[in-house]
């Protein structure tokens, strides 16, 4: 069995078939990129994986486990974390609190103990803080630790959101357009981080991306989608030169 696999995945919203018979496999340690024109169903696939939508048909397997019907809050506990295209950070909380919330999948909150703030709650908090500090070091976020997210520039928020996902200590990281809204330099930094995430943390990355320079720099395999169907799958070069992909982007 592969590390992560989507098998004949499909979802319909009324009469619209947003994702139609999509199958792909991601091997452990890969960076796997999904590309495609607007409305091709890329983010929908992410929402299916994080179980925000229910697939109409098909199966999702992750580490030999069927996760097609797992409730959404269980996904993080299984080792899948994600970011969002339009940044869904907790705006009125500090960067540190955002990262600590990323630790929620590892917390075993018990209300009565928390009300009294028993020593074991404090010890657990210290542990979460240490894990969050590792991510802060990894992503160079020291300067922003105590800032509120509302006060941060867009590029930093993007990194914070990735940090929050890393705090869940995932085995599979879903990045939804990590470079959207970033400047050229920030996009280059993003490429380095994605490489580091794979090489140093050993995390498999599944991402949706439009910026072909970033896709080319980091991806092992690329999947092209159009109208919810797979157009091509292979290395970045193979997919980029595939006639159907060119047709999907340029028309004709």
């Amino acid at each position, binding site marked *: 069995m592969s590390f992560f696999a989507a098998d004949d995945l499909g979802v319909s919203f009324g009469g619209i078939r947003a994702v139609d018979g999509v199958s792909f496999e991601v091997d452990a340690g890969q960076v796997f990129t999904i590309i495609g024109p607007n409305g091709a169903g890329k983010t929908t696939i992410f929402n299916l994986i994080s179980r925000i939508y229910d697939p109409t048909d098909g199966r999702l397997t992750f580490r030999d486990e069927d996760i097609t019907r797992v409730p959404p809050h*269980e996904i993080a506990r299984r080792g899948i974390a994600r970011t969002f295209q339009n940044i869904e950070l*907790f705006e009125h909380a500090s960067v540190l609190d955002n990262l600590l919330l990323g630790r929620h999948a590892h917390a075993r*909150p018990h*209300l009565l103990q928390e009300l009294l703030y028993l020593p074991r709650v404090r010890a657990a*908090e210290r542990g979460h803080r240490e894990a969050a500090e590792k991510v802060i070091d990894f992503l160079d976020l020291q300067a922003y630790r105590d800032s509120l997210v509302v006060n941060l520039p867009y590029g930093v928020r993007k990194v914070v959101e990735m940090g929050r996902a890393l705090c869940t200590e995932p085995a599979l990281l879903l990045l939804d357009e990590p470079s959207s809204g970033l400047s050229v330099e920030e996009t280059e930094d993003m490429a380095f981080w994605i490489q580091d995430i794979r090489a140093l943390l050993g995390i498999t990355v599944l991402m949706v991306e439009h910026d072909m320079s970033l896709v080319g720099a980091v991806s092992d395999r690329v999947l092209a989608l159009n109208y919810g169907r797979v157009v091509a799958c292979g290395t970045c070069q193979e997919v980029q030169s595939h006639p159907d992909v060119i047709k999907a982007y340029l028309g004709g």
Partner: protein
Amino acid sequence: MRFAFKTSYDHDLGLFRDPVQRRWYAALLAAVLLLPWAVPDYLSDVSLVFIYGLCGLSLMVLAGFTGLVSLGHAAFLGIGAYAHVFFLQDLGLPWVVSVALAAALTAAAGVLVGLPALRMTGVYLTIATLAFALIIQEVFSRWERVTHGLKGRPVDKPVIFGVSLASDAAFYFLCLALLIGGLWLTANVLRAPTGRAWVAIRDSEIAAQSMGVHLARYKTLAFAYSAALMGAAGALFAHRIGFLAPDIFSVLLSIQFLLMVVVGGLGSLHGAIYGAVFVAMLPVLIAQMRDTTPQWAGHVVGLLGRDAGAAAYLAVDRFVKQPGLEPGIFGLILVLFILFEPLGIYGRWRKIQLLFSTFPLYKRATFRRQKTYMRSERLR
């Protein structure tokens, strides 16, 4: 300028930011402990501030931290009050047991109201809580065996472990103790995973869910905890007013609670307390102004001539004795706050603090772009 120098994670885990802050709170505690000797005539008013503080805390957890705006909190207060009086006076339970049971019962009611909250957001949830409050008020007036209906029901003075707390000062300390207890428990939850999960739900449900937060569980928990605080406040409230009648727990009271957290500052525990001071003391202030303003106006305008002074006295007197003055002033202040200071009194306080802590470097422009609203206000 002041810099925080931290050497251990425990510095961020403590209740207080630094020793300086701890000393300020100690000074505040000393001040409220000495207050009964300083202003013996106003103790009953200050007790109400403390009770409202608990109410503010309750709604702050729900609206300010979890983003679920409720217009039904007067009903929770009523459930707590009636339950306490029923347990205390009809069943003859000890005071402490009675309060605990009342809080537990109100928490159960909170769970019941919280269940539809799992499917509704924003203004629809607010309307559902409003409907709940109206139903509960009807129950209060019909269930005569327990509530004595519209006749109302007198409440005895509290007696704890055989000690009577009938005096204003004793009751003042009782309210203070419960408020501090409530603050402590709430601050503890908020710096633990449960509190962070609440804030996460407020700011982005979808992200909270993807980080492993069980939305249904935490929303229900927020409702239950908020209601339990309200139940405890209700028990004190019953003793404070000494007479329970259904029309006390009206929608207007719920609106006052909401006003409290918005004016105080959504999303901060300080805000709940500032709001309580504001809402509980404003009527006292207005009552005083009713007596003094016409005379002042008379005196000042009287400098121009005797007739003008008398006319001014009469005009101002007639204005301040209008029956709708109080809600009018409340409404005006709420509108002004939302226009100019969305983060309430606490937001303003933070700006003043920043002015002093960064003294020569403060720029007005620091806050120019940042008139942000909490999501609970935007009602998604």
